[in-house]
């Protein structure tokens, strides 16, 4: 039995599952990272993904165009972060509390809207909506193995990897990125050097909202092709966790996102095998995040203690 499990783990299908699973987590991670680069902890990623996933389907349904749905989702993502920015920056509320509150009632608000439009509290299955498809890359798709790995993915998966490269260049190779990182490292020093800290923080929040929204839209318009209650199921938090593990290291962020995706894929493969208890198998991805995050923080703690790295 073990050999049959192992054999499924080393197949092309498993690799492709990982790539599909990684997309929303990487979008979320990118969102958490860009906000953290200017010193803002965006923990509302999960709720932004929920709102955007719903808005994406509804936008696509109302306009008849899946890309309009994507734009709808992004607009809702930006509106959500603007709401957070308004309450925390203008009205002096604790941003963490506002974001915790948002996460807590995101599902209920989504269900309320869903019910008004479809009369159903569970999914948008009753709506016929245009969705986004997959892309076959010409020439590359005909190469054996490599073609199978690189071609035929969902369109937003390609956008995700493109954004990962673009954001690396923006954050580390442009003056704008340098200013943003300066805000994150020491906002007062950045301010003294003439950087408009607040504006950059709002910019990074908006970008963060857009990335998180793309993660949500990927789930509802590309991957599952409907919105269903509770569909984000912690993937936004995995992005936040990946950002915590990365601690400012960009490629570590991407790596952690991929590792979490591996565990999600493992969980899905195990759950199709009745020999394993489904209740526990479903918790594997969360358990992996818990263990990895804890181990990384313990290792960091002892490295700082031994004086190998300067503590903060």
């Amino acid at each position, binding site marked *: 039995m073990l050999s049959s499990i192992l054999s499924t783990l080393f197949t092309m299908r498993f690799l492709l599952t990982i790539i599909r699973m990684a997309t929303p987590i990487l979008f979320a991670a990118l969102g958490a990272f860009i906000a953290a680069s200017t010193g803002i902890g965006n923990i509302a990623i999960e709720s932004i993904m929920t709102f955007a996933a719903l808005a994406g389907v509804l936008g696509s349904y109302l306009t008849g165009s899946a890309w309009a749905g994507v734009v709808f989702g992004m607009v809702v993502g930006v509106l959500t972060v603007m709401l957070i920015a308004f309450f925390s920056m203008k009205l002096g509320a604790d941003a963490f509390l506002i974001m915790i509150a*948002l996460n*807590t*009632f995101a599902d209920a608000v989504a269900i*309320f809207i869903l019910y008004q439009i479809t009369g159903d509290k569970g999914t948008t299955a009753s709506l016929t909506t245009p969705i986004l498809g997959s892309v076959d890359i010409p020439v590359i798709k005909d190469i054996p193995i490599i073609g199978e790995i690189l071609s035929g993915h969902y369109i937003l998966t390609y956008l995700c990897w493109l954004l990962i490269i673009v954001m690396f260049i923006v954050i580390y190779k442009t003056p704008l990125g340098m200013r943003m990182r300066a805000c994150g490292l020491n906002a007062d020093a950045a301010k003294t050097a003439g950087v408009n800290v607040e504006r950059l923080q709002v910019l990074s929040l908006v970008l963060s909202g857009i990335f998180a929204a793309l993660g949500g839209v990927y789930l509802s318009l590309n991957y599952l092709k409907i919105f269903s209650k509770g569909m984000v199921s912690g993937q936004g938090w995995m992005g936040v966790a990946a950002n915590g593990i990365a601690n400012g290291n960009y490629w570590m962020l991407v790596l952690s996102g991929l590792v979490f995706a591996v565990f999600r894929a493992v969980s899905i493969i195990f759950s199709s095998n009745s020999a394993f208890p489904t209740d526990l198998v479903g918790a594997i991805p*969360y358990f992996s*995040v818990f263990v990895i995050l804890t181990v990384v923080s313990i290792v960091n703690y002892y490295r700082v203690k031994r004086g190998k790295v300067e503590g903060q």
Partner: protein
Amino acid sequence: MTDNKNSKYSKNYKLSISNPKIFDAIKMLISILIALAITFVILCLVSSDPVNAIITILTGPLTKTRYIGAVIESFIPYAFAGLAAGVLFSAGAFNLGAEGIYILSGAVVTAVAITPLTESSILHPILCYLAAMAFGGTLMILPSFLKAKFGTNEMVVSLMLNSIYAGIAAYVVRNYLGTLKRGGNSSKDYLATAKIPYIYDPLHITICFILLIVVTIILYLVMKKSRLGYQIRLAGTNPKFAEYSGISAFKLAISTAAIAGVLSGMGATTALLTQTTFYTPSQSLVGIGFSGMLMSMLGRNNPIGIVIAAFMIKYLEQGTAILYFVDNSVPSEIVAIVEGIIIMLISSQHFLRRFREKKLLKEGLEEHAE
């Protein structure tokens, strides 16, 4: 909290807006009114009879004793969750683990409640409580310990643990406490000795209601009058200062988490022994721990405020549930919108500040003229 520095001005103006307590009350009232106004606008959009709808939401639960009884019965576990979150938030700890503690200690309560440990119908519920409180108190410490010792992100850890605990609870109930009678997802029926009876039947009042009041008063005294409470609040408002004044952040993190865990265990036991006769991990206690955080924000971390907030929210939910019978265009999720608006407004320190400052300035000038 931040308004306290103005308290020396408040002595002369007991009934004016410059009194921080009165200002807080006014702010709360205006927040609620704004939330209700927005709710009314939403009702106008979705319901054919919005005026009747909002009247039903606000007065519906008072129309029958069993309605208000349902509110009294259901708000108690939420109040406990709110108290748990309030202790953690007061200490500035973002351990969001109450949800998972509720669900997993539900399995512990169930294990005790289906085992014939004792003939006594007084001792059996007490054993359920003690088991869940000990279990909850211990488990809640984990994220706070990791945060205090190694700096692990407690919010993410506690959320991941919530999902892990939910999986474990489902597994344990299915394989060890379950019965095939209910499709394998639910536990066996609780023994009659474990059930908590009503003291006053029409209003569904049980001994748990008194327990909640006692716990709330004790917690209020601990938070406001005791050394521990002072240390918790200091650590929450100014962690650096707390550290320099010799308060051990580590000990404080552990003790607040333990208190919150014990309260969560109490809430889970209350919910199960008063409202159900068996446990379904995917349904029975889901969402209570998370709602507790909202109750805590509404009650501004004040134990008495939290209990009132929990009652208010469950009252509104009952109101919308009644409305849903009459007019099914308005689902009960609308309460989340009301909650959300109130929370955002009352946690905004600058909301109405300019209005208050103008008043203060005017009063100051008048005093000066005299």
